[in-house]
């Protein structure tokens, strides 16, 4: 089933990407071509084939649960577009006076 514009806009909203109208058109075409290509996986019998999450995985090694040195706060904050010396300062997640969801929930 070919994608329509709303599929691209929905993915862009999930990914927090603002797209221009002409970008939506281009990406719709590109994603369609890609999804047509990946149909070559459909004829494989994958019954009883386990998924591979990462190569040679015995699972990540865990380090000892001990406190250790971390990046000093000043170094962590140094590159921030805005900070108050203690925390990162971000735009408001919820705007007053509107019904718009500014933050986490999906559209």
């Amino acid at each position, binding site marked *: 089933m070919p994608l329509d514009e709303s*599929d*691209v806009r*929905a*993915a*862009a909203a*999930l*990914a*927090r*990407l*603002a*797209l221009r109208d002409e*970008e939506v058109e*281009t*990406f719709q075409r*590109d*994603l369609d*071509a*890609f999804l047509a*290509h*990946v149909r*070559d*996986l*459909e004829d*494989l019998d*994958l019954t009883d*084939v*386990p*998924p*591979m*999450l*990462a*190569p*040679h995985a015995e699972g*990540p*090694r*865990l*380090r000892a649960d001990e406190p250790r040195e971390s*990046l000093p706060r000043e*170094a*962590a904050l*140094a*590159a*921030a*577009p*805005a900070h108050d010396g203690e925390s*990162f300062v*971000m*735009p*408001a*997640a*919820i*705007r007053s006076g509107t019904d*718009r*969801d*500014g*933050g986490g929930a999906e559209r």
Partner: protein
Amino acid sequence: MKADALLAAGVVACAGAVQEGRVSARALTEASLARCAADAHGALLHVDTEGALAAADQVDAARRGGASLGALAGVPVVVKDNLCTRGVPTTAATRLLEGWVPPYDAAAVTRLRAAGAVLVAKANLDELAMGSSSETSAFGPVANPLDPSRVPGGSSGGSAAAVAAGLAPGALGSDTGGSVRQPAAFCGVVGLKPTYGRVSRHGLIAFASSFDVVGPLARNVRDTARLLAVMAGADAQDATSADVPVDRYEPATDAGVRGMTVGVLRSAFETADPKVAAAVLERIARLEGAGATLVDVHLPHAARSLSAYYLLAPAEASSNLARLDGMRFGPRASARDLRESYEATRARFGPEVKRRILLGTFALRAGYRDALYGRAQRVRTLVARDYDAAFARCDVLAGPTAPTVAFPLGAFSGDPMAMYRADLETLPASLAGLPAISVPAGAADDGLPAGLQLVAPAFQESRLFAAGAAAEPA
């Protein structure tokens, strides 16, 4: 030998000359910096003149003081700009990290510096390592030093071009789906993708975390062995780095191939450009001449790698790149609220990065996840099993690194699928997490080189060094 000639002779030659006092680290570094300043191929994003000279002077002072020198003492190296470098700007060729100066070094960089290497410059790349041509960099494309109308390959195109143009004898790249091997092939240098987990990913700006590997590029196989030996090994800061003993890589380059069985990937030669196929087969014939036995090998699911990889890697990227949101580092677009700020900041990604974020987000969406992402993960298992079966019969596998020589700049603009197909030969080893090397295979077309790709079982890089050295030009 003068500094310029040493740079051309390679990493091991430079280190030896510094060690023996035939040249100072400062003279080598100045020669490298002069070449970096004259770079006409867009290979570099930042030259660290001050830092490099200070590091070189430290090596020279250590030598004068009688201290023992590291394996890379005084050797100028270029580092791909998706590896964090303390105090040196690191952009990964994206506007979202423009002006960012990391507070720490990547683990691979720490190990190079500890061995005495002199970091001279940061190499250009496809934006966030997403591309096969180094054309998607937000700061302009890289041209191939062998023919500036052609691409250097990607995404480590700046690293490959830097080595090919002699700016430095060695470079670091990163390989997710072929990003060290393919540019090495296109620029006529050696490029190694180590086993997944062989080199720490700490400080490598993540693209697809179950694929990403840091790997060296250099002018000959022995040089890549020296660079890997310095970088390899477990690291407490990367839980996926492997706690597997590190071989003695450099002696392996003299081991030869007598008694080795080389699996020849016949089907890869059918899809490759005939001139590329002929050049690569000539190298494989050299291996036979040096005592290896050739057998034909087929990887039944390799052709599905393109679909599997371009579902899995963008899915991982769509998650990893969520951190590039303008909140903690990098520039932030002003907006009325948080959501608008995220969206406006991330609108500064280039088209290829947006395409892959959308692709990955789509592959992970409820309702599609099992059919797309889940299926691709199972195909990944099949590709790995294909290799297991092949390595039951042979020691290494051989084929072309890329189906063509370097293509003209702009050849695939507007046709991303055609560009993705350029990765066809490098993707299977990436899916299986196996080590692979690209060795120059001589002039194939218009005087441009082809690449011979050798693949080995996990953590058997030594076999690649033995076979690679036997196949490389004398």
